[in-house]
């Protein structure tokens, strides 16, 4: 009963997502020295699903998505993305897999020696190896227009506000049309109005580009807006999952504490 309560069974929204499993995680473990960050992570994400991961700082949320994209090698367990075992991929295969995954960093991680235009051109010319300047310009302008920053095309990142940097970061990630999007605290450090705008933009982009998403956040409004399913982590393990509304009514004090 307790187990059933922990993993709030009903997944009204997520169960409606039909499709293949694109990310499969079973018994994932990761330690840094004597610090066991991930102890036993089990998670399956289906195509088109938007999963929000909640948890206190230091519980291994970011480490989980860093393992998914191959930035960190897990110490144990299974982790496959599109059926590929990420930890055992060769460099070339990992690069190809990464082309299907977008990663939005907390601060946007814009290349500060380049203009917004050059930031957006970078993945097109270096990753997709596009040569046609007209096509590059068209894609840059289209994606910038999508995030409402076409006017900032020739600005330097240092001239942009925090919210604008995140929008440009999102545009740079989406320009290669990834199938999976990983968001690492997309609204951290922003005021409530800009946070809501970014959350709505994420949802809008998910619909437009039909991506599968994992969103790590502490922002409950962002979780509410963007999630099909919410997973809650505690001490390197998942302790509850379900829709936002289901978890809000959970009997578990720890789970409810996120919503109060």
């Amino acid at each position, binding site marked *: 009963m307790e187990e059933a309560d922990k993993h709030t069974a009903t997944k009204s929204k997520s169960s409606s997502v039909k499709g293949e499993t694109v990310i499969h995680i079973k018994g994932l473990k990761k330690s840094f020295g004597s610090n066991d960050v991930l102890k036993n992570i089990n998670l399956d994400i289906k195509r088109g699903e938007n999963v929000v991961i909640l948890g206190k700082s230091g519980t291994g949320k970011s480490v989980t998505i860093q393992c998914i*994209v*191959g*930035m960190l090698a897990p110490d144990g367990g299974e982790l496959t993305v599109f059926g590929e075992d990420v930890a055992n991929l060769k460099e070339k295969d990992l*690069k*190809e897999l*990464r*082309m299907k*995954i*977008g*990663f939005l*960093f*907390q*601060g946007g*991680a*814009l*290349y*500060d020696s380049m203009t917004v235009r050059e930031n957006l051109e*970078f*993945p097109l010319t*270096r*990753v997709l*190896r596009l040569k046609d300047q007209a096509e590059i310009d068209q894609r840059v302008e289209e994606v910038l227009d999508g995030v409402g920053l076409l006017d900032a095309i020739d600005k330097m990142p240092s001239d942009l506000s925090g919210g604008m940097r995140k929008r440009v970061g999102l545009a740079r*990630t989406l320009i*290669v049309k990834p199938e999976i999007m990983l968001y690492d605290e997309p609204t951290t450090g922003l005021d409530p109005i800009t946070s809501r705008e970014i959350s709505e933009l994420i949802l809008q982009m998910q619909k437009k580009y039909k991506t599968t998403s994992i969103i790590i956040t502490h922002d409950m409004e962002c979780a509410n807006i963007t999630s099909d399913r919410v997973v809650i982590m505690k001490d390197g393990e998942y302790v509850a999952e379900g829709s936002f509304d289901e978890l809000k009514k959970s009997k578990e004090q720890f789970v409810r504490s996120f919503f109060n």
Partner: protein
Amino acid sequence: MAEQAIPGWKRWLEGSGDQVIFLTRFFRNVFRGGFEWSEFVRQCYEIGYKSFMLVGTTAFIMGLVLALQLRPTLVDFGALSMLPKTLAVSIVREIGPVITAIICAGKISSGIGAELGSMKVTEQIDAMEVSGANPVQYLVVTRILATTFMVPLLTLLGDVLGLIGGFLAINITSNVSALLYFNKCIGSLDFTDFLPAFIKTIFFGFIIGFVGCYKGYNSNRGTESVGLAANSAVVTASLWIFVVDAIVVQISSILFYH
């Protein structure tokens, strides 16, 4: 005591291993397709052109001071006519390459260390890597090749300006024509003076770029590590420049000067 020494050795061995891996990644990426020509040219401009004033001024003053300092000693020995030759040989063989390299270690190696260190801290390098781009090819290969290419050129310019400084110093106290002075300077130099000096500047350039990139690329996450990367890059590059200088001079002495 022995227990304390083990972690130090382990760290040293780990660091050496990391450097070998980094060096291997550099060479593997040099010969891989898709060389970043535009970034390479930009780095040559940043590293070469923007260091020219500093290197040139320092070399000019070094030549001038060296001539002023040498003059009284040579007069005592009745060998004042040897001044252009002494100046030319000391500047071309040793002072030009080493002074240029030390200045470049201070300016360029620390700059690269700080730039890549801050890119690491702000997750820009991670962003490049997870996007499927190749940060080693874009950031590391271009910078190391640019320093390897530009430091010998800066040394050449420094040598010329050092000799001009020497000419000015001689003309403060004597009246020597430029034609005579430069004829004596160039006439006293031969292939064995230029070649080892030129070869070692290539090594110096490589060290400056490699150490700066390694320290910056492998810096830790905190903002403090940016300063540490820059500082450590200058210290390590300077040390390696002197070590390589001693080795090259020893080898060239055996091959050419005996």
